[in-house]
Structures are given as C-alpha cells and as structure tokens.
C-alpha cells in the first residue's frame, strides 16, 4: 500500500482525498498557494508545503515545485484530483521518472484519450458505438464537404485538442460550412495551440449520460453504472444524478458493456468516466473519456456503495479489485447540486469574498463535500465551487424532495450562490418528470435574487 500521498490540488477534492487516506492509514502532504494558507486541506493533512503565489501556473500547475514538495516530504505518490494536472500526461511521466507513483492511469493512456480524434478511433475499434463523422482529423474544406454529404446536416466541427466548449461550431446548412470551418480552426489554434479539427453528426436534443468505471492493473474493469448530467450551462454541469430517469435496464446493460469494452481496449487501470450522447430513441454514441476522478463521483458512491477514492488508491497500490463488486446493483437514487459562488441573475458572475454565515444541512441521506467554513474567504483566483450537496433516497422523488429541504437548510451568507437556482430547477415540472436534455438550461430564466 502506498505510504504517503501528496495531494496536488486544493479545495473540496483535496479534503476528500485526505479523508480516504486517513481510512487507509496513509500519510498526507497538502500543498498550497499563499492565499490558501488557511484552507481546510492544509489543516487536516499531516504536513503542508507552500508551493507558490496565487496564480495557478506558479503554484498548483508548477510541476517543479510540486515534485520538489514530494521530494522534501518523502511522499511516494501524488494524487492529482480533478482539473489542474489531473489529465497532464507530461506531469504523469515526470512523476514516473522521479519514482513517484501518479494516482491515475498510465501516461500513454492519458495522451491517447486526451486526443479526441484518436480516442474516438480507439473506441470504434473496441466495438463501442461512435458518433458518425470524420475518421480522425479533417485536413481541409474539401474533405469536410465530402464527410458532411455522407452524414447529413446538422454537423458540429470540433477541435481535436479541445474541450470546454471552445473551438466548436455547429453547421446547419452548406452556406455556413466555410466560415465555421475557418473560425473553429482559428479558435482552436489560439486556445489549444493546435488547429486540428474533426467533424461529427450534431444531435439537437441529446442527453449527456456517462458511465463511471474502475480498472486495476490485473485486467479487471467494473462499471458503477451511469450518471445523468444533462443539466448543464455552457458545457459546465450543474446537477447530476444516478440512475438516469431516461435509461432503461436494457440500455443500461448495453452501455455498461460498451463502456467496459472501451476501457479494456486501452487497458484502463484507474478510475475514469466514458461520456455518451444519447438521442431520444435510446441510441447512444461515444463522446469522450475522462481519465481522472470527477467532481460528481459522490453520486455514484451513493448508489453503488463504494469509496471511489479509496479504490483508486488501492488500485494504484497494485491491489486487485474485489470480484464481488461486479455483481453490485444500483440502489436507490442520488442527486448532486454543485453550489458555486456565482450570481445566476448577473450572468453567473463569480462572487468571491468572505462567507459571513455558514450552516451545512445534515440528516438521513444527505452528504456535503466542502472546503468552506464560517468566516472562510473564497479567493478569486480559482474556480467558484463552494460545496457539493448530494442526497440519496429510495427513489428519484425522495432524493429530490430531500434535496429541496437540504437546500433550504444550507446557509451561505456574504456571497452569492447558485442555491436559489438549484431550487428552481428541482421544482421545474419537466425536471421533476425526468423530461429534459442538454438544452434544458438554454432558455431558462435566471433572473431572480442570487442567494445572499
């Protein structure tokens, strides 16, 4: 078993990892930037090392300082969390060459799955349904035209090295193709230093369904079932749940099988997620693979009944996954609300500052993952996630009703939060009926008092 883990992250996920380490009797090293000196993860780790000033590229993304911190504390491994360097194959390689275990998949798997065009190709070879489109990178407009004629409009042009909604253009008709192709290429070049593009069929009202996977170094891969993540704004998830109200057991079985095949195809050996687009008829297509632990992992932990971070660490320690997990079934229903320090009524403007009053809900089936506390000052340098509120119930309706009173009890004063927005979404008739897709928030009315 690993002996001492350096957590190369901050906020709630750093605290989450420390908790798992305590249960496994593993020592922890927290790293922090100057403004994070009073963070909870710093206080609750065994040791803490300051690694730089506020800007992420000088601290949490500063590879020499991170590796140095591991060296001076004799940490034998690094957990990258999510975001920051979690999907940096370069960082994973450097860890390996410095004899520090990177808690995640092998570097070459990160590289392969990080290349969107290559990942799609790899899944196709493994027999996973993929979105009809170009076979890899589209070199020029002539090739683009040929492909579009095959698969039909509408299509979406995407950056191969991209993500987060940038370097993307939807094309509904032949007149738009030229401009869209050039614009996407320029945006990709400036955002990712790589102008390679690929083209896919565009689905108007898809649902975003992802499968949580866990693999070990001995060829075993299990699926923890699906998460429904269609409640998104500008490709940022706001609410996630498991199971999906739109996925039948038949589709679930097919998705689990496909996802496991896809992961086996790259010998995946850590926690990871395969994202699918599902159309209105229940057909699903591979979108991308995330080779890290994700923000919404607690949702799967509730319905599947395991500790994903502990399992990730055990796998990194070369342990075999427990065979029994292959037979677990999803139990009940779980929902997560991402509570961000943002004001929805002002275009989700970030609201950093001091939390003057903080009270967290509790009770049966209520889980809060947060690094915030009363009088905590939310810095302006990092993301706006303040807390994750997750509820579990015997069915979807109970989980929703539970979430509603838990949101009522959650007091965060001094900053604006998305709590009122979550309440509004959960009370929405279509959401309640399970009748929604990724377009749900597009025409939503965000104008009401941001919770203060």
């Amino acid at each position, binding site marked *: 078993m690993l002996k001492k883990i350096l957590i190369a992250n901050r906020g709630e996920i750093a605290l989450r990892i420390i908790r798992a380490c305590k249960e496994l009797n593993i020592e922890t090293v927290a790293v922090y930037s*100057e403004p994070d000196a009073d963070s*909870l993860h710093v*206080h*609750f*780790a*065994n*040791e*803490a*090392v*300051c*690694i*730089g*000033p506020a800007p992420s590229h000088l*601290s949490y993304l500063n590879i*020499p*300082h991170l*590796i*140095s*911190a591991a*060296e*001076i*504390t004799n940490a034998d491994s690094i957990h990258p969390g999510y975001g920051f360097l979690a999907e940096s194959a370069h960082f994973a390689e450097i860890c390996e060459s*410095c004899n520090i275990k990177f808690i995640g998949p092998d570097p070459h798997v990160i590289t392969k799955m990080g290349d969107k065009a290559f990942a799609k190709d790899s899944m196709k070879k493994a027999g996973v349904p993929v979105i009809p489109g170009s076979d890899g990178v589209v070199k020029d407009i002539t090739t683009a035209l040929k492909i579009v004629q095959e698969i039909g409009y509408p299509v979406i042009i995407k950056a191969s090295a991209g993500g987060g909604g940038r370097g993307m253009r939807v094309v509904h008709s032949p007149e738009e193709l030229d401009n869209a192709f050039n614009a996407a290429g320029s945006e990709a070049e400036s955002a990712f230093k790589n102008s390679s593009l690929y083209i896919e069929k565009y689905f108007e009202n898809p649902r975003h369904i992802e499968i949580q996977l866990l693999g070990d170094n001995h060829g075993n891969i299990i699926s923890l079932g699906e998460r429904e993540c269609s409640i998104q704004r500008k490709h940022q998830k706001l609410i996630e749940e498991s199971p999906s109200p739109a996925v039948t057991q038949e589709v679930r079985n097919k998705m689990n099988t496909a996802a496991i095949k896809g992961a086996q195809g790259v010998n995946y050996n850590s926690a990871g997620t395969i994202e699918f687009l599902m159309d209105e008829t229940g057909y699903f297509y591979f979108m991308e693979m995330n080779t890290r632990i994700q923000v919404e992992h607690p949702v799967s932990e509730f319905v599947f009944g395991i500790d994903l971070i502990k399992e990730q660490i055990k796998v990194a320690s070369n342990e075999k996954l427990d065979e029994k997990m292959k037979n677990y079934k999803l139990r009940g229903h779980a929902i997560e609300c991402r509570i961000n320090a943002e004001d929805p009524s002002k275009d989700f403007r970030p609201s950093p500052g001091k939390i003057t009053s903080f009270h967290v809900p509790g009770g049966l089936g209520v889980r809060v993952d947060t690094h915030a506390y009363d009088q905590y000052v939310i810095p302006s340098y990092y993301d706006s996630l303040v807390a994750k509120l997750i509820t579990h119930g015997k069915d979807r309706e109970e989980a929703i009703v539970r979430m509603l009173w838990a949101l009522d009890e959650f007091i965060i004063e001094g900053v604006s939060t998305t709590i009122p927005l979550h309440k509004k979404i959960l009370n929405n008739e279509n959401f309640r009926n399970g009748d929604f897709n990724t377009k749900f928030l597009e025409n939503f009315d965000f104008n009401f008092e941001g919770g203060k």
Partner: protein
Amino acid sequence: MRAKEIREFVKIVEESNVGELEITRWWWGKIRISKSSSHVTAMISPANIAENTTISQASKPVAKNAVVEETPAAQTEESNLIEIKAPMVGTFYRAPAPDAEPYIKEGENVSPGKVLCIIEAMKLMNEIEAEIKGKIVKILVDNTQPVEYNQPLFLVEPS
C-alpha cells in the same frame, strides 16, 4: 498551526505592550502567549475533539500541551531588517558541496548577484542570488533543511 506562525505571534507579544495574547481556532485549539519581566511563554492546547488529529500533525509539529519559551532575543528585531525568502521549494544547502566552505556567513556583506545558497530541487542545484545590498544578520535555516516557497532564509540589514 505551523511553528513559523507561532514564532510570529511570539514576536508580536515580545515587541509590543501586549501582556497576553490568546488565539482560538475550532480546528486546532488554542494558543496563549504571555509576557513576564524575564521571558515570553507560549502554551498550546489542542482542540477537544476526540478524533481530531490536527494539532499533533501540523508540519514541523509542536508537541501537544508544550510550552515554548523564547527569551527576549539577543537578536534585536529591528523593523528595517529585510527577509530574503525562498523563491522555490527544495532542500537548502549553505555550501556548493558537503565539504566546501559556506557561500556566506553571518555578519558578511552581500550585494546583488552574490550567491547566498543553493536550493536543490529535482536533482538540480539552483544558486540563489542576493538582490539587495546589505549585511547578513541571521541565517534562518539549517544546512539540508527542506524549505517551502517564500520561507524566510536570511535576515539582511540593508545598507
């Protein structure tokens, strides 16, 4: 609470007319620093939360219920002294090699460009140069001590 923060609070009490200072945080407990005519005493009580292991595991830990005594230092902490801080994370070395002479000693003068020490990181030796002109009043870390970003290394009296 880290040792360097305790030292800072002790300094505050030492240099002011404050007779006693007590700070409480729910996650690490309480620290009380008091001044008598001859010395300054710091008392630390860990939080009374059964499973809370914060205090005993702070980096460079001070043992639970320890009493840290700090006599009014021979170093008169003049307010014009400048701290030279570590620009990186790594291991501090006073000399270019284990058996070589240290780069500088206390009392020596330095000027911009003078190599003061080495900080080793990822097997690379990085020479740290002075950026100001002055006299090294105190060397704050020991040879082969691990240092973090912005950790004070030298106290300099600028000239």
